[in-house]
């Protein structure tokens, strides 16, 4: 079974925001909600790097752990999804998520958040695949059609890769070997305990 992952090659990302636009358009994401965003580090300085960030679909998802109504579930492809019907808009998933993936439409009184919305890896939600209800709540379900997330498909430099972890790692490895210099993938040292010479 595939284990879906995102990988943003920070050496290639040019901050064009095509991924952001593609996601917004494909899922008709309401104003104010940013399922995907491009963050630029060291902006304007030498060594400026941009990374596209959305939900990382964690294995032991912190959002799922703290949800008071257990509205999250993980699919067989390891995609972390949630049910907007069960969500009570408490905001805890945003406090717990290290990547800031959950977003809220902020409808209602006081700071009332409304139903949480986040990147679905283009895999919809608990409703029937491809149904109108699923589209209205979660956006399109590309995975059910056998397609990969649109953000990665639209990436102009193919820095954002999305799909099975094994395949992505293979593509990325070929890239790094071919271009002959450092991996831009942060987390390498943390994950694999080996440093990369730059």
């Amino acid at each position, binding site marked *: 079974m595939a284990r879906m992952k995102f990988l943003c090659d920070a*050496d290639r990302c040019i901050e064009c*925001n095509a991924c952001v636009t593609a996601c917004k358009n494909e899922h008709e994401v309401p104003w*104010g909600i*940013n399922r995907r*965003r*491009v*963050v*630029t*580090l*060291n*902006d304007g300085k*030498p*060594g400026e*790097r*941009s*990374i596209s*960030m959305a939900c990382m679909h964690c294995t032991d998802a*912190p959002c799922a*752990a*703290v*949800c*008071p*109504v*257990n*509205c999250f579930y993980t699919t067989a492809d390891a995609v972390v999804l949630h*049910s907007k*019907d*069960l*969500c*009570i*808009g*408490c*905001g*805890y998933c945003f*406090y*717990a*998520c*290290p*990547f*800031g993936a959950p977003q809220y439409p902020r409808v209602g009184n*006081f*700071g*009332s*958040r409304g139903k949480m919305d986040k990147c679905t890896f283009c895999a919809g939600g608990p409703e029937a695949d491809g149904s109108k209800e699923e589209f209205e709540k979660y956006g399109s379900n590309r995975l059910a059609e056998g397609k990969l997330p649109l953000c990665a498909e639209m990436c102009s430099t193919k820095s954002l890769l999305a799909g099975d972890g094994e395949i992505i790692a293979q593509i990325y490895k070929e890239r790094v070997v071919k271009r002959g*210099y*450092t991996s*831009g993938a*942060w*987390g*390498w*040292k*943390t994950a694999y305990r080996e*440093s*990369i010479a*730059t």
Partner: protein
Amino acid sequence: MTRLRTYFRLLVGALVLGFVVSVTAPVAAQQVNPTASAVKEEQLLNALRGGGAIDGRVSIPDQRSGTLIQPEGQAWRAFHQGTLLWVGGIAILGMLIVLVIFYLTRGMVMIKAGRSGRTIVRFNSFERFIHWMTATCWIILAISGLNITFGKSLLLPILGPDAFAAWSQWAKYSHNYLSFPFTIGVVVILLIWIAGNIPNKTDVNWVSEGGGLLDSSKHPPAYRFNAGQKMVYWIVVLGGAAMAITGYIMMFPFYVTDMAGMQTTQMLHSIVAMLFVAAMLAHIYIGTMGMEGAFEAMGTGTVDENWAKEHHALWLEEERTRTGPAQGQRQPAATPAE
């Protein structure tokens, strides 16, 4: 210089330059490392160490999305799913066990001399109204609050996901709305009863005799509020204030503080809540089944004179001096509200 010579010099110069460039350029290219000054993983790890976040620039108006990673989320998760459950479980279950043991060993504290049949007014209707408004709000706030922490472990298996989510949604709404009458009640309680709740020497004596809780022969004197009640008062006022402040910060997320602030606020709110619930369980116990003649003080507003003599002797004296000794009325079982 002839023109020919100038051209010849230019040609030689160009060739030499071309030669030099072609020889050195590839070497220079091999020496250039395009990512030499890139942000290194080590730098980022150091930024993350100590709970820091990594921030960058975004073109989105919501500047909070500029935070790339906030690892404190994991620490907060560990608190909410670990520490808090233990603190809450031990505080609340522990208090319940203590109360059960206390009831089984000491039993209900009876009026030793029996009821005299004469009563005096202890709390007027305004005081009782404020108490019951605040108390009812508190009960609903406590249950809806505990639902956030313990609901999914205790209630979700019973109700199923849809019913539990619907119940939790309404619990959250009532929690947010009832916070207002609760806060008003706490403020009024602070004002109307602060005079009687300043600690003094009688309280030291009362505490030293254990309030007569464990030794039924002891009846340490007290004014209108004994030391135990004063503790409850200050727990309500200070705890209630802490809950209100942290609660309103959470109800208006990110208005006054950032992510770290919101996480800390939630931690304070939940820990104070657990201790508050434990304390109020003891208060509810002693005011209902723990002591004969106690509930009517807040229920009808009048108490039996013998009860007053045994538990609040100094207050009874003050009241008698104030209103005159023959004021005690014979009361039937139920009295109309004043």
